[in-house]
């Protein structure tokens, strides 16, 4: 007796669970019951779980009967001739979808040659167990699984050709690589997914060697010549949006070049790019602070007094301008209307990004790294045949990570480039390494892929043979231009008078509690004080009541709000945060009395 549950709800019980489950599956394959149903017999709990709910991950497998797959040559031929389709196979019960639970009851063979009578299913292809991104890693079965994970994650961050109509799209904050290529070493998934329509990387020559230590700790070295020829060149699109908002009382924003009497008028120079309609013209080179869309808004608060005064008509400046550290060229301007019927201006700015120190690159094997040095082509090492690598990768990245596929891809890429053909590197089903090596030998190169190299600066031959090959490299979206940040002086917060936080606000880098401790541990008392001087203030304090006094600069007089004018008042230097705390104590009804004492 086994209990039967449908979507986790108790349904009843059956006498012979194994027979029941078998019958259910047969009926499903026949098409008598929906193929969206999965049956799982849990032997340990002696219960049958029937699932038909949505949101289960299922995958297709070929049904096997008595060790013979139901899918035959005849089906394949029919498929090729387009006489039948995939869904026909599913309907006929030749292919069925299993969910995670039913897979527990199945015995799945990897390859057809492995089949025994016990098997219930056969993989369509071993690649089917990988996701889309992971299928894009060539020779993936030679990598550690963690590297495969990292490799597919990295591919999602690669700059690519994301949409062929990009020129007329108003995408915000996107990158576009300029000379994308199809990988020489590809997988079947590249073909299936039409990778050629949205490629994301470039085929380059990689040498595995060190170069003056500039590729330590996963850094990479780029050839300046390659960059000049277009390696890793990308475009960054930044948006600017303005809308003519409507306010209560029939007031409305106005897109125009602001008048000089507008509240918050910047300088004439800031508006210099605006045309008569208040919008910037295409191909204008803008820098930080420049206004892209001129706009004025009605005054914020209309009190009864101001309604009649002259000043009431003063409008506010609310233009869109480039923030700190931003620059670009105006690329595309769109004038339209939004859902509410307000006038909407969208400006797209483009910024060409050449690879620079600190930009992030990766191969497809989770071997990411940042640019550590850009070397003039004349200083790059070169091979006997005169090949100069585009990129130098550190050998220390290989042993601990065990990305064998990285090395195989280099050989495969080399063969592909020399023979002028694409190499199939599909995981579990790739062109074998030995064959590639033999072909490489027949092409006049060393079987190992290593080459004699010469120092680019001295012309001396390197004593070691250097492993050189072609790889598909991706430029990742993390670029220094979007992250670089420094500050000496700058904006402060209103409440605490301490520096603002974050790059967007031109903020400082916090010297936190633990960093403070290191100063104390060194006994660097005065240096510590200097570090924390960012919110230093001088306040007058009344000697008799110990409360912060008032300094009237206009009358050049100090007085205490409690004790009046005839008391000793001294200036003390404290942090503004402390003054704030004293104020908060006062608001709590606590009297924080300062007792002054001469420091000397």
């Amino acid at each position, binding site marked *: 007796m086994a209990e039967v549950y449908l979507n986790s709800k108790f349904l009843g019980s059956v006498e012979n669970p194994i027979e029941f489950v078998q019958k259910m599956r047969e009926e499903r394959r026949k098409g008598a019951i929906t193929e969206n149903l999965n049956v799982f017999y849990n032997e340990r709990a002696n219960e049958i779980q029937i699932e038909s709910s949505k949101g289960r991950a299922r995958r297709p497998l070929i049904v096997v009967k008595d060790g013979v797959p139901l899918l035959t040559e005849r089906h394949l031929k029919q498929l090729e001739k387009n006489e039948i389709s995939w869904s026909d196979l599913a309907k006929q019960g030749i292919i069925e979808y299993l969910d995670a639970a039913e897979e527990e009851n199945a015995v799945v063979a990897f390859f057809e040659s492995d089949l025994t009578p016990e098997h219930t299913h056969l993989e369509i292809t071993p690649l089917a167990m990988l996701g889309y991104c992971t299928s894009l890693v060539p020779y993936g079965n030679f990598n550690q699984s963690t590297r495969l994970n990292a490799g597919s994650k990295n591919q999602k961050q690669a700059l690519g050709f994301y949409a062929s109509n990009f020129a007329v799209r108003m995408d915000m904050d996107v990158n576009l690589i300029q000379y994308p290529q199809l990988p020489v070493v590809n997988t079947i998934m590249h073909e299936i997914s039409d990778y050629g329509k949205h490629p994301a990387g470039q085929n380059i020559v990689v040498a595995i060697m060190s170069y003056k230590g500039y590729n330590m700790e996963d850094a990479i070295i780029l050839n300046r010549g390659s960059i000049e020829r277009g390696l890793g060149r990308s475009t960054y699109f930044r948006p600017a949006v303005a809308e003519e908002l409507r306010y209560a009382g029939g007031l409305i924003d106005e897109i125009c070049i602001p008048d000089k009497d507008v509240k918050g008028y910047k300088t004439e120079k800031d508006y210099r790019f605006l045309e008569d309609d208040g919008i910037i013209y295409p191909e204008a080179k803008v820098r930080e602070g420049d206004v892209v869309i001129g706009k004025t808004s009605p005054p914020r608060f209309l009190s009864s007094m101001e309604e009649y005064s002259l000043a009431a008509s003063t409008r506010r400046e609310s233009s869109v301008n480039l923030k700190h550290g931003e620059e670009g060229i105006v690329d595309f301007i769109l004038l339209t209307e939004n859902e509410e019927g307000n006038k909407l201006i969208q400006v797209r700015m483009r910024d060409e990004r050449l690879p620079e120190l600190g930009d992030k690159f990766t191969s497809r094997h989770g071997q990411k790294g940042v640019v550590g040095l850009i070397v003039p082509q004349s200083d790059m090492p070169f091979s006997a045949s005169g090949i100069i690598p585009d990129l130098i990768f550190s050998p220390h990245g290989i042993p601990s990570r065990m990305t064998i596929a990285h090395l195989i891809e280099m050989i495969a890429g080399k063969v592909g480039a020399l023979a002028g053909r694409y190499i199939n590197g599909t995981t579990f089903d790739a062109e074998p390494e030995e064959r590639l090596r033999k072909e490489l030998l027949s092409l006049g190169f060393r079987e190992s892929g290593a080459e004699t190299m010469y120092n680019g600066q001295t012309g001396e031959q390197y004593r070691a043979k250097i492993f050189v090959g072609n790889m598909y490299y991706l430029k990742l979206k993390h670029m220094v231009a979007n992250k670089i940040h420094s500050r000496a002086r700058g904006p402060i917060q209103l409440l605490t008078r301490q520096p603002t936080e974050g790059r967007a606000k031109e903020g400082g880098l916090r010297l936190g509690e633990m960093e*403070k*401790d*290191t100063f*104390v*541990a*060194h*006994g*660097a*008392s*005065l240096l*510590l*004080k200097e570090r*924390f*001087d960012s*919110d*230093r203030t001088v306040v007058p304090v009344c000697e008799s009541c110990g409360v912060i006094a008032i300094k009237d600069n206009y009358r050049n007089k100090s007085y205490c709000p409690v004790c009046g004018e005839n008391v000793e008042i001294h200036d003390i*230097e*404290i*942090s503004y*945060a*402390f003054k704030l*705390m004293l104020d908060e*104590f006062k608001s709590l009804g*606590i*009297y924080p009395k300062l*007792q002054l004492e001469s420091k*000397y």
Partner: protein
Amino acid sequence: MADIISEYEDMLPPKIIEGIRNNIPKGISDTKLKKIMEAVHLEYKNARVTPGEAVGLIAAESIGEPGTQMTLNTFHFAGVAEMNVTLGLPRIIEILDGRKELDNPMMEIYLKKPYASGKNINDLKNLALQIKETKLRDIATEFTINIADFTIDVKLDREKMKALELTNGKVIDAISKQIKGHNIKDNKESLTLKARSKEDTFNDAYKTKEKIKAVTIKGIKGVSQVLPVKREDEFIIITAGSNLADVLQLEEVDAYRTTTNNIFEIEQVLGIEAARQAIINEIFKVIESQGLNVDVRHIMLVADTMCVSGTLKGITRYGVVSEKSSVLARASFETPIKHIINAALVGEVDNLNSVVENVMVNQPVPIGTGLPSLTVKPAKEKEK
């Protein structure tokens, strides 16, 4: 010769002096010896911590930084049997918090001569069983309440009693010592408890029934497991559960070396100095077991801070931190509102003598270069 060395007795620690005494060649000339002593004294002076060094903070950093590398929440099984030991960060936190109740209290009982050698394994086993606490529930099979007259029947497990060398009389003795106001009748296979007072209700009977289950019949209270183990070339008994005071009473136990991991208990039984040493030993054990390298002196400082007041104080807002004189320093640790309100109620004064307060008001902290100041005695004008 002895004169020259004893001259330095106040200036050098006894251990160094002894070292010199043992190591200088015989018949050394006085001038040479004097030179040696001077050199040693100079080295010793240079090795001392300089005034104003932030020793506490450096200790904190020195223990805290390797602490980040410790595998969080690791529990290991110490060798044989199912003896659980708290190790790693949880144990360090347990020690530094000065907890009275540990997750896994443990004892290491060292034994006197005949037992320690382990020649007679049976004696050792018997001793271990003597130490292990046997509760009434361990030797009873059933507890029932007679609803008619509110008596409690306890059915005894003869076999278990035999193994533990217990007789009904011993059990009755133990119960009557710990549960007062009851008459106990011996029915051979069972015992019957009857309350002496006549006003007993069913509720009272139920309560006593629950109470007698935990009555210690034999052994030492709190010791739930015993495990004789060979360590180097002697046998010791490791226990789960700790009761230092009672174990030390046993004749067979070597009281000089027997110890527990419950520091609070050590403080109660052996005093604060022993507790200090126990803290050092226990923390060092954890750090060593994690393969980290921390200088003992950092740990010693922490142990000292926990023990200076004469009683064991944890590094918590109720322990060491509550002793700080500065309101601002206390408030900056935990529960600031509580500290500030209490300070406001009594009008506490903060003299800004320590580090945290001075960081808050942005003044030089009195440590390192911020410590020395100039003292000038102004000449009185009248004297001129």
